[in-house]
């Protein structure tokens, strides 16, 4: 679960990380009022989960009172990488003296958390690694030991801050940076994050260390330990992928027109690849998992067909533990009731495949074809999608 900047920053604030005063606004008027409370200058920032919002024009610095409402109106009308902007964060602007980068992320290669710091923010990390390796820290954190003090000292050394530099309240900048590293680790651990990134982490003109942005991803598998975040995840979930998740399906919408469902992530991915190789294009990735009970198949069909762009459906089942005849009975039950008006191709192999094919043949569902194997199923589905719509295009099983 990816958090929006403002939500990540509320977690930051709760964890004692330094963030600037800000307000979330959903209309130009609200943004205007927020700027009035915070005092100018302010920065108005699009709240979207995709990167690249700065380049897309989703971040604006406003120095004059009249600029805020106009900037908010512009940004709220935007769509960034396919995501409509529904809110902006109005944040007090600061004078930036230096930009740093700090992140903790879950690393597959390290099998645990990885602490990454760069004394140069806003630059490609790989480039920093080549050009000035001393400015970079890349330290695996032992999952059982946690962040160690020497690792915090390594970050502070790499930052090479002026030892005399201090905030107006007298806090040395080096001490503030060490505090940020420790607090970020605490937050990462306590909130079951798989990513906590501050880019940029800035040193202001007056010598304060401040988190200017936040990028936080919470582990979906651990949401049960975080009731508040879980409730937010469910409340915000209305799209097809969220509906599929509730039904226990793994679902990803794709751009093509051949609906795909199968049992097993690898099998479905491979089926999508075979469709592309045969000149077709898959409309989705949908893994119904093991067992494949009728209600799960029904939910899958509902999610796949609700897009309205599907012109053929391919069901690919390889029975391991799952018996193909059980899946076939589920399909007959669902397809008999659902109004599926596109050609359906079913491939059954593995455990009880012959029995499964017999069940489908007996049911004589209009528009359904039973393929003899994976390759034929793909060929038939691609041909079915290419054929003109209407009952004449259907094949009888």
């Amino acid at each position, binding site marked *: 679960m990816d958090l929006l900047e403002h939500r990540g920053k509320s977690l930051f604030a709760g964890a004692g990380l330094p963030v600037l005063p800000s307000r979330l606004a959903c209309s130009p008027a609200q943004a205007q009022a927020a700027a009035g409370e915070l005092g100018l200058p302010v920065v108005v920032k699009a709240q979207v989960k995709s990167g690249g919002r700065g380049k897309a024009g989703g971040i604006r610095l406003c120095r004059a009172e009249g600029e805020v409402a106009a900037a908010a109106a512009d940004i709220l009308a935007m769509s960034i990488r396919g995501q409509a902007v529904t809110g902006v964060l109005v944040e007090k602007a600061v004078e930036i003296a230096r930009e740093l980068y700090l992140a903790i992320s*879950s690393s*597959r*290669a390290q*099998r*645990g*958390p990885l602490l990454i710091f760069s004394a140069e923010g806003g630059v490609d990390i790989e480039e920093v690694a080549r050009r000035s390796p001393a400015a970079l820290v890349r330290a695996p954190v*032992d*999952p*059982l030991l946690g962040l160690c003090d020497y690792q915090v000292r390594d970050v502070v050394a790499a930052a090479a801050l002026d030892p005399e530099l201090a905030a107006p309240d007298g806090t040395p900048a080096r001490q503030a940076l060490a505090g940020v590293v420790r607090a970020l680790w605490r937050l990462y*651990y306590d909130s*079951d994050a*798989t990513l906590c990134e501050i880019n940029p982490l800035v040193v202001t003109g007056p010598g304060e260390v401040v988190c200017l942005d936040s990028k936080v991803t919470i*582990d979906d*598998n*651990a949401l*049960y*330990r975080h009731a508040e975040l879980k409730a937010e995840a469910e409340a915000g979930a209305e799209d097809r992928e969220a509906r599929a998740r509730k039904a226990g399906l*793994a679902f*990803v919408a*794709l751009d093509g027109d051949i609906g795909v469902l*199968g*049992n*097993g*992530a*690898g*099998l*479905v*991915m*491979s089926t*999508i*690849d*075979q*469709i*592309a*190789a045969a000149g077709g294009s*898959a409309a989705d*990735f949908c*893994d119904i998992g093991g067992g494949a009970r009728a209600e799960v198949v029904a939910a899958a069909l509902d999610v796949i067909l609700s897009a309205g762009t599907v012109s053929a459906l391919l069901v690919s089942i*390889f*029975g*391991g*533990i799952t018996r193909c005849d059980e899946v076939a009975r589920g399909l007959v039950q669902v397809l008999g009731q659902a109004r599926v008006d596109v050609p359906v191709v079913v491939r059954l*192999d*593995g*455990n009880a495949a012959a029995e499964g094919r017999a069940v489908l043949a007996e049911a004589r569902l209009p528009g359904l074809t039973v393929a003899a*194997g*994976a*390759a034929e199923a793909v060929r038939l589905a691609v041909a079915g999608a290419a054929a003109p719509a209407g009952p004449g295009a259907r094949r009888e099983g």
Partner: protein
Amino acid sequence: MAILIDERSRVLVQGITGREGGLHAARMRAAGTNLVAGVSPGKGGQTVEGAPVYDAVAPAVAATGADVAVLFVPARFARDALIEAADAGIRLAVCVTEGIPVRDMAEAAAHLTRRGTVLVGPNGPGLITPRRCSAGIMPADVFAPGAVGLVSRSGTLTYEVAGELTQAGLGQSTVVGMGGDPIHGVGFLECLELFEADDETEAVVLIGEIGGDDEERAAEFVREHVSKPVVAFVAGFGAPPGKRMGHAGAIVEGSSGTAAEKKAALEAAGIPVASAPADVVTLLQARLERRRSP
């Protein structure tokens, strides 16, 4: 010999009194597994599938000499169950459970490494040495004994490829499903090393998918350390970036972890990559023939 498990393996099932645990304990036994014990806290004293049930792993190990544990415990208890198995001296822990929090898995994996316990999974089907031992949920009927070692990131796709191999008369020494989570136990490298050293294995099949760089590292390893024929299949060419394709670990991040990249790395190391699961058989047959003919 096979790798990791064979007829001498003494298997214990954690969570044996649960629905899944009981069902698969029976299947494992039918597949030739020497099932010696079950563990379910608070259910000690029962018997499931002829195996005595204990409240904890340590007494089960002491009484039965179990060296392999297969875990069918709910995700929120998996960390503790894995640590318990390692502390009891289990040699190989096979975790079928899906949905374990990343933090829990990182901690458990680190602990198992310290104890010297080998991990297979989580979020995978386990492993099987056909007719001799099954530790997990693989459908035994699909497999046949033979000389092909198979290691995979996927479940169903593994059965499909193994089924094709079996039908073509190419049996398997051991088949390992490493699991679909980003943090997992043995992977391509560990299995390749074991298969290379195994007398019974003549060739190896790798089944990869998008996400991470396991396939790239495997390609490098094969180039330097593997003399036996290796062929591969990779799934997920059509996967859009930033989307998890079913498995938690199957995600293209930015432009890294793509199927095309993996295919290129494998081919550069001399490993042919099949364009469909069924083509694994023909590629493998060609490789084996080339090796046998002088």
